[in-house]
């Protein structure tokens, strides 16, 4: 269609497809995460019908505190899963880190030194996992199953199975202090971890490499992506997240136990799957993993608040995972 201005033909501007607004784009990109967040709110509302205190500030703070270690572990596990790997060793890395830190603190090390030394456990386990998977070519399931077993065993060995009470009065600051005024550290570390990881995954080349490797490692290699280095890196990051999470938890509980991470591995994998990650790699987000971890904690909290036998928690969580996977499958099939 043409128009005229002072007799001259004027070409109408081409009709451009309307650019989606930022809100619409966010809705599209984070559709799964928004659905999980809505489900969490719904669960809390349902629980509040039985126990009105569910929505109290105190309870929400409890849920935040209880979910913090799982969130941090899940972030690391998510990175590995996004590259189509698996890390079964995070639970025993968590336990071993706590025992090593407890040993260091009880031997008189200052807490920052003990913490830094203990982070070496996660880095070490992650490096072993990464090296065996990447450079030796062993299956991630087998490698991390081995480090899981060895780590769980070493957690007992280092203190002969005894738990250690942490008596350093300043150590609690790691979890309960406030590096940023008004924001307690465990919340700060979780938000910072999720934000940094999400930014890296969405905006940095490194993040795209992670998804590319998870989607098709062979194609990624042909494209010149340093597959081995990235894979090695995500296992180290996973170990580091597990160790840091353990130190946060230890700072809160003030007691190191050799079995402290026993249930974390399955919960972290579940959190990632609930959060939209595929065990075949290439999908999901750090925000999703965080929300998955929060959902698991909210379910545990809700079961206790309603007064259901806590043995049902596993069944409820299992059902939620199934529903999450089915919804994901159907939405992807329709898209």
């Amino acid at each position, binding site marked *: 269609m043409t128009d005229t201005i002072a007799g001259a033909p004027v070409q109408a501007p081409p009709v451009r497809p309307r650019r989606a607004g930022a809100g619409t784009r966010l809705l599209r990109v984070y559709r799964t995460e928004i659905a999980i967040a809505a489900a969490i709110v719904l669960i809390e509302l349902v629980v509040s019908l039985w126990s009105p205190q569910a929505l109290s500030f105190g309870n929400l703070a409890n849920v935040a505190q209880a979910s913090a270690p799982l969130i941090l572990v899940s972030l690391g596990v998510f990175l590995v899963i996004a590259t189509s790997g698996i890390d079964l060793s995070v639970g025993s890395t968590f336990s071993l880190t706590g025992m090593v830190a407890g040993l260091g603190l009880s031997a008189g090390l200052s807490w920052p030194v003990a913490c830094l030394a203990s982070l070496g456990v996660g880095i070490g386990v992650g490096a072993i996992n990464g090296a065996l998977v990447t450079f030796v070519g062993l299956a991630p399931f087998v490698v991390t199953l081995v480090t899981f077993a060895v780590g769980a065993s070493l957690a007992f060995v280092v203190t002969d199975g*005894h738990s250690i009470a942490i008596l350093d009065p300043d150590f609690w600051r790691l979890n309960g202090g406030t590096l940023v005024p008004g924001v307690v550290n465990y919340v700060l570390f979780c938000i910072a971890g999720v934000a940094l990881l999400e930014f890296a995954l969405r905006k940095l080349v490194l993040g795209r490499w992670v998804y590319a490797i998870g989607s098709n490692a062979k194609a990624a290699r042909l494209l010149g992506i340093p597959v081995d280095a990235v894979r090695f890196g995500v296992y180290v990051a996973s170990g580091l997240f597990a160790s840091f999470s353990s130190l946060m938890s230890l700072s809160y509980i003030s007691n190191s136990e050799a079995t402290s991470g026993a249930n974390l591995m399955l919960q972290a994998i579940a959190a990632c799957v609930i959060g939209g990650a595929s065990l075949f790699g290439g999908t999901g987000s750090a925000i999703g993993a965080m929300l998955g971890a929060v959902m698991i904690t909210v379910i545990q909290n809700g079961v*206790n608040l309603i007064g259901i036998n806590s*043995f049902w928690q596993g069944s409820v969580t299992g059902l939620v995972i199934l529903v999450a996977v089915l919804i994901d499958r159907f939405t992807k099939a329709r898209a």
Partner: protein
Amino acid sequence: MTPFSMTPSPLRGLALATALALAAAAPAAAETKPGKKFTVAYIAPSLDISYWQWVAYGAKTKAKELGIDYIELDSHNSPVDQMTNVRTALTRGVDAIVMGPVSSASTPPVLRLLKDKNIPVAFTGIGPQPGETDYTSTVTANNYEAGREEGKFVCGLAKERGGNKVGMLSLPQDRENAQKYLKGAKEAFAAEGCDLVQVLQTKGLTVREAVDQTNDLLTRNPDVKAIYGMYDEAATGAAKALQTQGLVGKVGVATADGSPTTVRLLREGVIQGLFLQEAGGQGIEAVQQVYNALTGAPVTKELPLPEPLVTAKDIDSPEAQAKLKRVYPPSAGQY
């Protein structure tokens, strides 16, 4: 002959050599030499739990004192592993067995096997299946009586704090000892006029889980004035939750078991009562009973050990200190 059997294989050779070596070694190990030292096996249900480590410590200490050789096997909470351990112990030529069974229901096949071999067996912690009689001795805690006494004490704590509502952090109720604790506690609460508003069962026996459960318990029931702990980590977790919420002293706590951590919390006034369960003492008495059976001395078939209450006032008394030394080893921490 099949082609398979004709084909020489280094692996098959190795397997054959191993089988021959084992076949030659087994009868030698099982052979009873005249004048040899007795050997006792302690078969633990799960050595990743401090309680069973401490039973093991008691058994080992007593065996050394009596000049008996000692071996230790872990059933990893599996009846199958337990049966395998019994057979392994017999292969190694033990003269007696001290066992913490994985459950009462798992004991009949063990007892049938040991009766055939004429091996004395003493149970610790968990007794045999009701109706079974072919055993030397059962050394357990008097859980029912302890449950009653602790219930009475916890109810008193609640009343001192101006209420009558109590909560409980329980062992899994599929265990006979947990059922006895609960039965005794419920009777005491009814008799003393207290209301047991919620029972939360542990799955992982960790402090972390107990912290979360205490938070949930107090969120749902803000009028709870005292918490009944059925295991040591329950009190440690409850104490941590109370410290975080500023409720120390406002909500009373008592627990069964006893450890360096709960002893410290008792001294600090964070918890008010400990019902000491002689983990080490059970190992000591059980080894004594099988030794008596081997040497023809009288044995005591049922040996329930009392669980006396200690408070901050009497923890340093000679009686309480002597009792503590039968709970956990010096390597676990301070008395």
